[in-house]
Structures are given as structure tokens and as C-alpha cells.
């Protein structure tokens, strides 16, 4: 009986292995690009060469201080520290690091029990002298928990390093800030983003025009994660076999193209009130644009126009009001009328100044 059962087991095993190998292959294929191309080495992190060099030097000299990495989303904060941890520990990564983020409960109890337990124990048989505790999204920790951290951080300096990561440095209490070396991750420059995009394009064998790469970079606005997501969704939504072009990138994200903005501005500055409302509404409908996006991009355009300063000041102030109201679930059409009204006033001011 037992023999038979064992036999069956034995016969099953290779099959199961094969199945899991296929699964792993599938998983790789199904991965989102954001995770697939997350840098695994420090040197792969796209931008902030100075910060990366500094951290790399400190890591290799075994003099890593406490770190506080902060900045807007998608600028490589988590990627950097994960890469550091991988370089430090290699395969021992999971034993030597404790990663806590906002999805974990991080009240004062966790700080008192889990963190302090992890921090206070020594680990033998590892080359690196210290363990690493990564507190991701630490700006959403409660004040109490942050206060409780202060002493723990100091007490275990010998064999533990802390790394705090957050979007807003102002939400981290000053007492913690002063214990860490701060690095600000600013939004990525267009060249760094473009290099990385081109790398992904080569890896994935994508057909894409240069204009489209520019568009992806521009819409990503220095946020690497958003950029890669735009690239992946443009790739998924493209029609037919041709390369991805700038138009399809704009269409996928629902963002107005520069041509659309020019057309809308032309209508607003030249047509009378009734026509302007009808025409802008038609463009909005046809291209599926949101008024808030239009207003935001129109402001840039307005600053490029030649018009009296006072008129521009009033116009921009009115547009800001419209944008503010749109953020609060208001009626698009009524706000569109207000926008047309703002331009009508500006037109009048321009005419008055010309006289």
C-alpha cells in the first residue's frame, strides 16, 4: 500500500516540476513592466547619480549611516534601498532585512515589539556587520509610533541600520530627521527617463517612433513608474502592426495633444461666446478630454501668448478658479462656460489695450 503510494508520488514529481517551470515562465511574461524592470543593482538606478554614488561609496566602505529618502512618487527611492540591500546581503537578503510599509499595521505596538525585537538581536555568520530595517512610506506612520522610534534608532546603532522612506519630509518628526542623513529624490530629468525608456523598448522589441518616446517622457513628468505604465498601456492598446506613435500615446492616456490645446486656444481667443462653447465642447467630446486637463495645459499656452500683463494676470487667476472648482466634482459644462467667459474678458482687455 505504502509502496504503491510512493510509486505514484515518484511518478508525479517530474511532472509537477515541469508544471512549475512553465508557471515561472508565465509569471515572467505576465509581470508588469514596472516590476520587471525594477533595477536590481545600484548602478542600474536611472537617475540621481550623485546620491547613488554617495550611497554606493558608503555601502562599499561599510559606513552606511541612517538614511531618510524622500521625494515624489516614482523617483527610485524604494528601488535604491532595495538595490543596496541586495548588494549588501545577496542571497541572505530576506533574513537580514525587515521591510515594513503602510500596508502593515505600524502603530506603537509594532514599533515596541517587532521592530525592537528585530533590531536588538545579533545575527551570526554574515559578512555584513549590520541588519537593515526599511520603513517604507514612513510619512503615514502615526506621531506616537515615530516618537517611540527615536530611542530604538539610537540604541541599536551597532548592528542595525534604519532606512526611512517617504513622500513628504514634513510629515516625519524633526527628531527622526535629525538622526538620519537626508537625500531628496527630485523628479527625474527627461534624459534619464528617455534612456531607461529606450532600454525597455530594446528589451521588449517594441516598434515605437521617436515622437512617441518624447510624448511618453513628457506625460510621465519625471515619474519613472508612471512613464513605464504609460508605455505599457500604449503598447497594449495600439491598433494593428505599425509602430506606436505619439497620437496613440496621447489617446491612451486621454491627455490632450499639443495640437488640441492650440485648436482650443484658437477657438477661445477668436470665436464669440456661443460658438466657443459649442466648438470646445465638440473637441472635448470627439477626443474624450477632461476639462481639468485642458485648463492645466492652456495655462502654459497662455504664458507663451503676447498680451498685456494685466489681462494675463486676470485670465490666469480665473483659470485657476475654474481648475479649483473642477477638482470638487462640479458640472463640466457650467465650468466650461466660465472658462469661455474668462477668455471673453481677456479678449476685451486686449482690445482695450490696443486702443
Amino acid at each position, binding site marked *: 500500500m505504502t509502496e504503491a503510494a510512493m510509486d505514484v508520488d515518484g511518478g508525479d514529481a517530474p511532472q509537477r516540476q515541469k508544471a512549475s517551470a512553465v508557471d515561472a515562465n508565465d509569471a515572467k511574461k505576465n509581470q508588469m513592466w514596472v516590476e520587471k524592470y525594477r533595477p536590481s543593482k545600484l548602478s542600474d538606478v536611472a537617475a540621481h547619480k550623485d546620491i547613488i554614488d554617495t550611497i554606493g561609496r558608503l555601502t562599499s566602505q561599510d559606513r552606511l549611516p541612517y538614511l531618510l529618502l524622500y521625494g515624489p512618487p516614482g523617483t527610485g527611492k524604494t528601488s535604491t534601498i532595495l538595490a543596496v540591500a541586495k548588494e549588501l546581503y545577496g542571497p541572505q537578503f530576506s533574513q537580514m532585512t525587515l521591510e515594513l510599509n503602510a500596508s502593515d499595521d505600524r502603530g506603537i505596538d509594532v514599533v515596541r515589539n517587532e521592530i525592537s525585537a528585530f533590531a536588538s538581536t545579533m545575527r551570526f555568520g554574515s559578512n555584513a556587520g549590520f541588519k537593515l530595517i526599511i520603513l517604507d512610506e514612513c510619512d503615514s506612520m502615526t506621531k506616537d509610533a515615530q516618537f517611540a522610534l527615536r530611542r530604538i534608532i539610537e540604541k541599536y546603532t551597532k548592528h542595525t541600520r534604519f532606512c526611512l522612506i517617504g513622500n513628504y519630509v514634513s510629515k516625519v518628526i524633526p527628531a527622526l530627521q535629525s538622526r538620519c542623513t537626508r537625500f531628496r529624490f527630485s523628479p527625474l530629468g527627461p534624459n534619464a527617463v528617455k534612456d531607461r525608456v529606450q532600454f525597455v523598448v530594446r528589451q521588449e522589441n517594441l516598434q515605437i517612433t521617436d515622437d512617441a518616446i518624447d510624448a511618453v517622457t513628457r506625460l510621465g513628468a519625471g515619474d519613472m513608474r508612471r512613464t513605464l*505604465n504609460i508605455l505599457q498601456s500604449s503598447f497594449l492598446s495600439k491598433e494593428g502592426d505599425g509602430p506606436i506613435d505619439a497620437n496613440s500615446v496621447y489617446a491612451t492616456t486621454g491627455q490632450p495633444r499639443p495640437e488640441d490645446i492650440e485648436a482650443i486656444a484658437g477657438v477661445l481667443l477668436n470665436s464669440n461666446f456661443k460658438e466657443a462653447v459649442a466648438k470646445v465642447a465638440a473637441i472635448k467630446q470627439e477626443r474624450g478630454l477632461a476639462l481639468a486637463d485642458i485648463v492645466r495645459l492652456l495655462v502654459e499656452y497662455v504664458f507663451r501668448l503676447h498680451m498685456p500683463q494685466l489681462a494675463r494676470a486676470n485670465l490666469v487667476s480665473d483659470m485657476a478658479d475654474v481648475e479649483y472648482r473642477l477638482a470638487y466634482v462640479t458640472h463640466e459644462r457650467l465650468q466650461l462656460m466660465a472658462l469661455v467667459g474668462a477668455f471673453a474678458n481677456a479678449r476685451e482687455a486686449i482690445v482695450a489695450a490696443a486702443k
Partner: protein
Amino acid sequence: MTSTSQPWVEKYRPRNINDVAHQEEVVRTLEKALETANMPHMLFYGPPGTGKTTCALAICRQLYGPELIKSRVLELNASDERGISVVRNKIKGFASTAVGQGAPGYPSPPYKILILDEADSMTNDAQSALRRTMETYSKVTRFFILCNYISRIIEPIASRCAKFRFKPLGHEVMGDRLKFIATAEGLTLGEGCYEACSTHSGGDMRKAITLLQSAARLFGTATITGKEITAVAGAVDEDQVAQVVALCKTNQVDGANRIIESILKDGFPGLQIITQFAERVVDDEGVSDAVKGKICARIAEADKALVDGADESLQLMAIVSTACVAMKA
């Protein structure tokens, strides 16, 4: 449930992503996802009735089939509790479990799908607790985040998703679908019906279908025309609005306010009156652009005030008064 008592909105909800009207980019993306079984996290946003929930449910059905969908898909909407504790326990629990065997005959990719409907009503704390969960379990779980207002979704979440805006539906697209439903229900759509449906619904498919069904139910006739649709749409009589504008032009604030008051007493919503008044003023050839600008600026402010919970009749009177003053000059 018999098919006659079922709301048409549910009865004719598209089962297939190909049937979803007017959202070509999203549909193409999802079709490719069906072929390659690969997709990023998705963020669908746009006005109500444009097909967000329909798309999400249809793709799940097509990916997993009717049986597997029960274990692979979790849908949470605003009616479920979604505070930070739910994110930490329920969502994380669902997201972290591994997936089992696929169903034969369906692509059934090796990940689960978590649909967060009406995500703009989630608290900021709950949203920020989602951030790392979305990344850590991206191998086994994809998130579909559905909302009306993208500005209510925190930036770190938005940056983790491929964003798709659902556009309000145009006249023709809406007409096609309404015609299909009317034929299936044995109705004839008379003159002006499509136009009335699309103006009164403002590109909201659900509202248009509901209007059609209410009109069919209320009048019980086999032919529905634009007039019947307008009657159930709850629009204010155009003549009354025209009267208000005319009184404003001659600076008779009291008279105008009396009419507004009586319209409000008839039970029409303030926003409806404001919208029709605004359209009327914009279309009026006898009013100069500068005056229109002034009135529209006040109307836009009133719109915001109403959202914040201001008193309808006061805001309406303020608009009418502004209009009177502006038109005087």
C-alpha cells in the same frame, strides 16, 4: 426574476468587452490582455454610465469563465467597508494567496483580479496602505481601480496604474445602442427621441437607458418620441426659463425671483434650473460676450457652492441678481 421586471440597464449590460461602446483604447488594451494574458494594474476613471464597471466585469468573465471567476475575482465597492483595516486584512489576504489551476477553455492567466469600484470614496489612509500591497503582490494579483474623479485618488496609487479615461458617449453611439434595445423590446423610437435621450443624459448610457425604460413604462405606447423622454427627464419648461431671462434683461429682479421660486416649489433640482438658464443665456444673441462672461463666472461659483451644500434658492437668486446687474449696463 422575470425578464420584464428586470431593469434594462442590467438586462442589456454588455457581457463581452467587444460590445462596450465608444471606449476603443480601453477595449483594445483589454483584448490584447485576453490574447497575451498580460496587463498592468488598471485605473479606469470617467463620468458615470460610461462603462467602467461593465468593462471590468466583462474582462473578468472572459478571462476566467463563469466558474473560476468566483475564486479569482474579488469586487469591493463603496457599500463594503473599506477602511484601513480592510485593506490590511481582507485585501492583503486576497492579494497574497497563490493561484490554483486555470479553467479549461479560458485564458485564465496565473493571477487574480481585485476590483475596487468607486475607489474615490476610499479614505486617503486606506489608499496609502494599498501602495506597497499593489507592488509586492503584483505577480499574483492585478488591481482594477474604478472611480469618477481621478483627483480623489492619491498620486502614488495613480502612478502605479495604467490610466484610462472613459469618455462620455456621443449621439450616434448612444443612438445605436438605444435602437438595439428598442428593437429587442419591440418599441419604435419616434422623432427626436435619440436627441432628447443624449441631451438629457449628458453622455451617461445608464441614464439614457433608464429614461427610455421609464418613458416606455409610463406612457405604455409602442412609439416613444422626444417629447415623452423630455417629460420623464425632469427638465424645466423652456418657456419658463425664457421668461426668467427676459425679466432679467429688463432688470425686474422681483419678478424673475418669483418665477424661480415657483419652479423650485414644483420640485425641480437647482442644478437643472441653473444649467438650463446658463444654456439660454449663452445662446442669447442680444447679450454681449462680456456680460455672458460675468454671468457664467457667477454660475460656475454657484455650481461649486451647491456641491459644498449651499442653499439652492439662495444661490439661484444670487445668479439672477448678478444677471440683472450685468445686463443693465
